């Protein structure tokens, strides 16, 4: 337990609100272009016209932080959402009786045995560099975690007395799954997804940093860190924006996941 329920929830929500405000409201208030270069003003420290400075091409860092955040967060949400949906369907299918379900379970275990980041690297290598392919690769390695979690929760549920009573009253398999198993997944999946969102954001930044995600001149938090690396001894402020944002989202995700895991989404 990191902190008490309410303080974890309040801190997490506040951090997330802060980052979301920056990304959603930011473009309305700060209308500077994230890609306009000004070679007369490269690697400038924070000032009135550039609140967090400029990068090596004289681009406004605040504008890039806002623009890049949209790319980073949307990608992370797509990855977590895609993995969650596929994992849930596969995990539920793995609880059915019969040979197909056993094969699915073995497929999940095999997928989990592969090192996920290296596998994602191989997929991006095979498909080509780019944000779309990176998202696909992350979903391809992310779903087995959800599938295993869902299978575990669903199997536990399916042996509960109320499920037996419902089946003996004539409720069919599909209705039992949708009406009596899936609602019980929500709280635990939400906690797992919140945790995964933070992890994914960090991993995405890492891939962009390696040059395998968003491509210049697009802005993305990981890419901004990669650009900043060359100058960070001379201009450490280049790191502050993306580091603070990635850190804030990961911390918010951890705190909210903790809260969800403790309270099951209630209380």
């Amino acid at each position, binding site marked *: 337990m990191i902190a008490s329920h309410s303080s974890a929830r309040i801190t997490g929500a506040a951090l997330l609100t802060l980052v979301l405000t920056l990304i959603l409201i930011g473009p309305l208030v700060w209308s500077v272009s994230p890609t306009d270069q000004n070679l007369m003003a490269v690697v400038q420290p924070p000032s009135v016209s550039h609140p967090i400075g400029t990068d090596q091409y004289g681009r406004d860092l605040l504008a890039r932080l806002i623009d890049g955040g949209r790319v980073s967060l949307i990608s992370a949400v797509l990855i977590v959402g895609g993995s969650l949906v596929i994992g849930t369907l596969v995990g539920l299918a793995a609880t059915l*009786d019969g040979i197909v379900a056993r094969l699915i379970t073995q497929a999940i275990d095999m997928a989990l045995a592969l090192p996920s980041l290296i596998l994602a690297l191989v997929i991006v290598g095979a498909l080509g560099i780019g944000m779309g392919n990176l998202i696909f690769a992350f979903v391809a390695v992310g779903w087995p975690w959800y599938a295993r979690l869902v299978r575990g929760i669903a199997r536990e549920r399916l042996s*509960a*007395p*109320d499920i*037996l*009573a*419902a*089946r*003996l*009253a*004539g*409720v*069919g398999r599909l*209705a039992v799954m949708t*009406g*009596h198993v899936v*609602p*019980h997944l929500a709280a635990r999946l939400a906690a797992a997804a919140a945790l995964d969102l933070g992890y994914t954001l960090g991993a995405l930044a890492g891939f962009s940093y390696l040059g395998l995600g968003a491509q210049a001149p697009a802005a993305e938090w990981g890419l901004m860190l990669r650009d900043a690396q060359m100058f960070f001894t001379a201009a450490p402020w280049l790191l502050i924006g993306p580091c603070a944002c990635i850190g804030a989202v990961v911390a918010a995700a951890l705190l909210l996941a903790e809260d969800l895991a403790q309270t099951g989404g209630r209380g």
Partner: protein
Amino acid sequence: MTGLAITQLHVRFANGAHVLRGIDLTVAKGERLALVGESGCGKTTLIRALLGLLEPGARVLGQMLLDGQEVPGPDPRALRGTRIGYVPQNPLSALNPLLPVGRQIAEAWEAHGRRIADATLSAELAAVGIADATRMMTYRPARWSGGMLQRALILAATAHRPALVMADEPTSAVDRPLARQMLELLAERSGTLIAVTHDLDLIDGLVDRVVVLYGGRIVEDAPAARFLVGPRHPYARALLEALPRPGRLPRGLDGDPPSPLAPDAGCAFAPRCPSPCALAAELPMLAEGVACHLGTGR
């Protein structure tokens, strides 16, 4: 013929457990039967075999006929709730804790493609004795009492006026004054009734017949009036003596119930029987309503 007819029913689980070992049981239409026995004797397995919902890998041998038609038949789901109603064991765990009770009781209708309006459901709940049903049905099970949940479950089990109602210990989770009420409600709402119960002191006047199950076999099958004053099988006598009565302490029964994994080797009750028997190595057959070498006068 109408009613239930079970002939030589055997159920063997995937792990080799021989849970039911040749059950012969006929229940006439409208008859009310108490099925008695300790945990592990096969009562629940019998219910699940009739409804076609045994664990995967279980093998069933023998014949089960309900009103002349084979059950569970090729489509067991169509029979559950409609021709055979089921009242679950513990009302507190028999409903999904996350969903409103009304929605779950309505499933008894919806599972068979019928819709039930909220007003109708509320009236049905009121008819089984739920006060303030319109409001109560929107609450989750945690806000209901055990007795009220049991009433709602009895309603769900009898929603389609099934030919047969199977109740799995309907009295085990409610207070004793309530237990009698539950049995009365059940008897009133069902035609043919098989009630699994331990509460032998509560069934007087509510059931016509008592059937005692031991080690997967029927060991006594007697009219209730006769059974309650003079059970013939030593196990049935032990059951009655284990009941609390004014002026005497209940007597327990030593030893363990037979394992469903054990092979048939004579009388299953012999190791616990208070009257040593020279014929213990032989399997006693049900004759004159009792499966005991002494009871049949040999």
